[in-house]
């Protein structure tokens, strides 16, 4: 028998997942995919990240060769126009006709656009595809006031996107009396609203739009309550409508409210045609999330490969981060007394709202809502889904245990074996624990043998706790070892390398390790060697991460970026001219960085030594932007120019940056010095931050920006400059000696028993009696500073390593291509 042909209509996330699941089970099908959009399937869930620098390519679920590699023929930009169920053929817009054995409709949904006067005007958009985002971005460039119609999950995402695009004033208009009406209750909505206001969003509830007014293009919105709002652009996010028009045309049973009606096998009224994802209506319900769509895809793939599986609805619990605010809702979130008892916790100062609904007998958790802090989401959801008996004080679930022993992880181990831990890949607790019993020791092992955590990644913390819990239960000693080659923590290895005076990686591996090393332990040991002996790192170039190996930051396409040090952000006009000349000569893209210096992008590896030769001649030094080491000490302009400045923050920032430049550490280090409490240098978001006071300086440590922002904590107040540097010496060296690899100071402090009080005791009161020693060690590193690029530029042997082709050293990588953008270049990708 010949291969059965399966035609998939729609190349969105669910259509793609169906193909992935089908080819992983069987190669006996001839799969043909038709997509309306011009690109391969991409991640719509994280669409708003497109405005945060992710490209369409980053959002892709696969690469262009994936379809071909798996024998799938892909027709992009070619929607199916007609299904002929009698001949069993599909007809595409471009005229392709294919005979199918089975047809899978994954046509998704389209944004619902209400029938309001003026929706066709210029400046009115929807938010669904990358093309929509491109249109929004182009229009936003000239817009000052934006509005989003719809305060649901997608609407708030869209509002975030407008803020990210630089729209100064963004409004959200919601018809219902609360935000996210499907996920949160009124009190949760109020808390969310107050948090969102802090981010500059204006929220209008109970507002119904009657007209989009303006000549030709949108100028203002009119509402039913006779008020109006002047806006330059509008994004409509008023819900979704299943794309069922093709099904209707083919005479398949559809609902009058939209959706292709399917049974528990995802079959439509024609048994050879399936519908999955947002176009499918099961039990009068459209499932507008990706996880149930994936489940539907799995059911059809199972069925077609001879298995048996059914759909019985799906848990619509969800957790997400909206404009920096965690929001989660799980189980039966809205059930009220007398059907249950609710426990509510509200902290309007921190913007936290938590509600749990428990059964009247106090035994079971029914559901709940979390706003502002949702760390407990995973375990709460498990508690609901597995009907776990509640502890005597269920309020501990949302407040944390107060006093007494904290039984961390115990809750996870008490889950039943069949508890679903990873819902993207349907992996149970039993599967994960068995994998650990069979030798898996870390998250990477688990990902490989169970696929848990490879989807959205939301379950990763839970999986890690399960690994640790299972290992503990087995009596295995859970130790923070570097990798399979070194059975020691970084701190242990640091001391052992020091005592034995080992100076290169191979010696360390021979003495304390096994095997041949890997990409985890090599840079970790390289960092230790550097922090101990401060030798020129390129002498051992092959144990360095790529950035450290080439002393530059590798970028998309394989070019590098070049960042000379500009201490404290202070630079003379002459040096600025040199940077401009160098960038021009080598065709580099220039941008001011967040750390007050200038980054030059697009350098070929071959050009790096010549670029640096010119920079060094002009008095520049390496900026170590590529290293796990001090980046910048950002400063405000301080008392020399600023009328508010108390002390000379620039001079102090330069002094500190010069002191610690080149010092290698477990992760990158950033500092800041502000000349007054207005904090223009954002010092409290840095690993160490210094703020001028009337009497001296306040020193803050262990702050962080990035994905998990954290304010630095106050270590010492009103200290003079010398004391400040002494404390910094101790703090940095203590961190360098004790932190795990790739652990920022904030995480290091978070894991430290006793926290900031302990750290203060070590640094200020010398509780470990190490201060004299660490001060000496730091001084040694300061005294042995060298500019790595100067070493390379002056050494022909080292220079020779900066080539792309070893057998054609003059030739540059022909795969590197650029295209113009705003009078500069960008990597063509």
């Amino acid at each position, binding site marked *: 028998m010949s291969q059965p042909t399966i035609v998939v209509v729609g190349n969105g996330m669910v259509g793609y997942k169906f193909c992935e699941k089908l080819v992983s089970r069987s190669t006996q099908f001839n799969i043909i995919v038709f997509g309306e959009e011009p690109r391969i399937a991409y991640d719509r869930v994280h669409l708003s990240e497109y405005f945060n620098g992710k490209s369409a*390519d980053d959002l892709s679920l696969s690469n262009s060769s994936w379809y071909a590699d798996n024998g799938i023929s892909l027709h992009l930009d070619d929607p199916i126009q007609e299904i002929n169920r009698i001949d069993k053929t599909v007809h595409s817009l471009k005229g392709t006709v294919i005979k199918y054995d089975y047809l899978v409709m994954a046509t998704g949904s389209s944004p619902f656009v209400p029938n309001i006067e003026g929706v066709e005007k210029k400046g009115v958009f929807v938010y669904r595809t990358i093309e929509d985002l491109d249109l929004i971005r182009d229009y936003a460039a000239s817009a000052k006031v934006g509005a989003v119609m719809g305060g649901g999950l997608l609407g708030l995402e869209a509002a975030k996107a407008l803020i990210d695009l630089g729209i100064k004033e963004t409004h959200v208009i919601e018809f219902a009396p609360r935000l996210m009406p499907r996920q949160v209750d009124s009190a949760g909505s109020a808390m969310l609203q107050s948090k969102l206001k802090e981010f500059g969003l204006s929220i209008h509830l109970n507002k119904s739009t009657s007209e989009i007014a303006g000549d030709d293009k949108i100028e203002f919105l009119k509402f039913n309550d006779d008020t109006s709002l002047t806006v330059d652009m509008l994004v409509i996010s008023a819900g979704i409508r299943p794309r069922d028009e093709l099904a209707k045309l083919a005479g398949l049973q559809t609902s009058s409210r939209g959706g292709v009606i399917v049974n528990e096998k995802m079959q439509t009224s024609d048994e050879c045609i399936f519908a999955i994802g947002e176009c499918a209506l099961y039990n009068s319900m459209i499932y507008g999330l990706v996880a149930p769509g994936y489940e539907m895809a799995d059911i059809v793939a199972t069925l077609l490969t001879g298995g048996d599986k059914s759909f019985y609805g799906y848990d619509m619990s969800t957790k997400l981060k909206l404009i920096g605010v965690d929001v989660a809702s799980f189980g039966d979130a809205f059930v009220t007394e007398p059907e249950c008892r609710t426990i509510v916790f509200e902290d309007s100062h921190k913007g936290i709202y938590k509600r749990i609904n428990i059964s009247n007998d106090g035994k079971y958790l029914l559901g709940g809502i979390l706003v502002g802090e949702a760390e407990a989401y995973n375990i709460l959801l498990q508690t609901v889904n597995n009907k776990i008996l509640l502890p005597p004080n269920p309020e501990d679930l949302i407040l944390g245990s107060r006093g007494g022993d904290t039984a961390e992880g115990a809750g996870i181990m008490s889950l039943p074996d069949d508890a679903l831990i990873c819902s993207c890949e349907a992996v149970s607790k039993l599967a994960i624990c068995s994998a650990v019993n069979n030798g898996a020791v870390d998250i*990477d092992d688990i990902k*490989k043998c169970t696929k848990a955590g490879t989807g959205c990644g939301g379950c990763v913390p839970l999986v890690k706790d399960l690994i640790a819990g299972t290992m503990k239960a087995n009596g295995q000693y859970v130790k923070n070892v570097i990798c399979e080659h070194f059975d020691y923590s970084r701190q242990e290895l640091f001391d052992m390398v020091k005592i034995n005076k080992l100076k290169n990686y191979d010696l360390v591996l021979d003495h304390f390790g096994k095997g041949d090393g890997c*990409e985890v332990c090599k840079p970790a040991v390289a960092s230790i060697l550097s922090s101990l002996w401060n030798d020129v790192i390129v002498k051992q170039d092959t144990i360095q991460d*790529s950035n450290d190996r080439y002393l530059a930051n*590798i970028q998309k*396409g394989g070019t590098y970026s070049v960042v000379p040090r500009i201490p404290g952000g202070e630079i003379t006009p002459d040096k600025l001219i040199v940077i401009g000349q160098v960038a021009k000569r080598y065709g580099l893209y220039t941008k001011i960085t967040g750390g007050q210096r200038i980054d030059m992008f697009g350098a070929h590896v071959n050009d790096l030594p010549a670029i640096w030769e010119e920079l060094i001649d002009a008095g520049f030094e390496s900026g170590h932007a590529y290293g796990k080491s001090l980046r910048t000490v950002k400063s405000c302009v301080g008392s020399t120019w600023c009328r508010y400045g108390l002390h000379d923050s620039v001079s102090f920032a330069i002094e500190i940056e010069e002191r610690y430049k080149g010092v290698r550490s477990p992760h990158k280090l950033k500092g800041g010095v502000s000349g007054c409490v207005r904090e223009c240098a954002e010092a409290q978001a840095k690993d160490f931050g210094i703020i001028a006071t009337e009497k001296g300086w306040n020193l803050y440590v262990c702050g962080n920006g990035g994905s998990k922002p954290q304010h630095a904590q106050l270590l010492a107040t009103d200290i003079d400059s010398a004391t400040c540097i002494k404390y910094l010496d101790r703090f940095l060296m203590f961190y360098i000696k004790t932190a795990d690899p790739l652990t920022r100071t904030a995480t290091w402090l978070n894991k430290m028993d006793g926290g900031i009080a302990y750290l203060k005791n070590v640094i200020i009161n010398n509780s470990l009696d190490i201060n004299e020693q660490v001060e000496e060690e730091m001084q040694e590193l300061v005294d042995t500073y060298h500019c790595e690029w100067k070493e390379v530029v002056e050494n022909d042997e080292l220079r020779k390593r900066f080539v792309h*082709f070893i*057998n054609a050293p003059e030739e540059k990588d022909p795969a590197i291509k650029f295209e113009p953008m705003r009078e500069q270049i960008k990597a063509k990708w």
Partner: protein
Amino acid sequence: METMADIEWVLACYADDVPANGGACVKHGNEQIAIYNFARRGEWYATQNLCPHKQQMVLSRGMIGSEGNSCEPKVACPFHKKTFSLLSGECLSGDDFQIKTYPVRVEDGKVYIGILE
């Protein structure tokens, strides 16, 4: 089984050119091939230079090492640390990628790559 007659041995570079326990990239016509000098084990490997994950020409700049009890030799892409077996070309990070590998011979300080004709 391939017979030796099918393989053309191409002079790629000198052994000294490739850093110990690291890689370098060789141009062969329009192809880019990564060569690895696994000095710790006295072994040489070669693979395609393109990382299939994000289509970047960078594998020669990756760190090499070994994995598991069998000490499977591997290279880690510098971009997102996807690792590949230097023996089979299989992706060891659990993704469904495969890279091309080439036989390598070193004679008189010269490195030859075997290209299938």
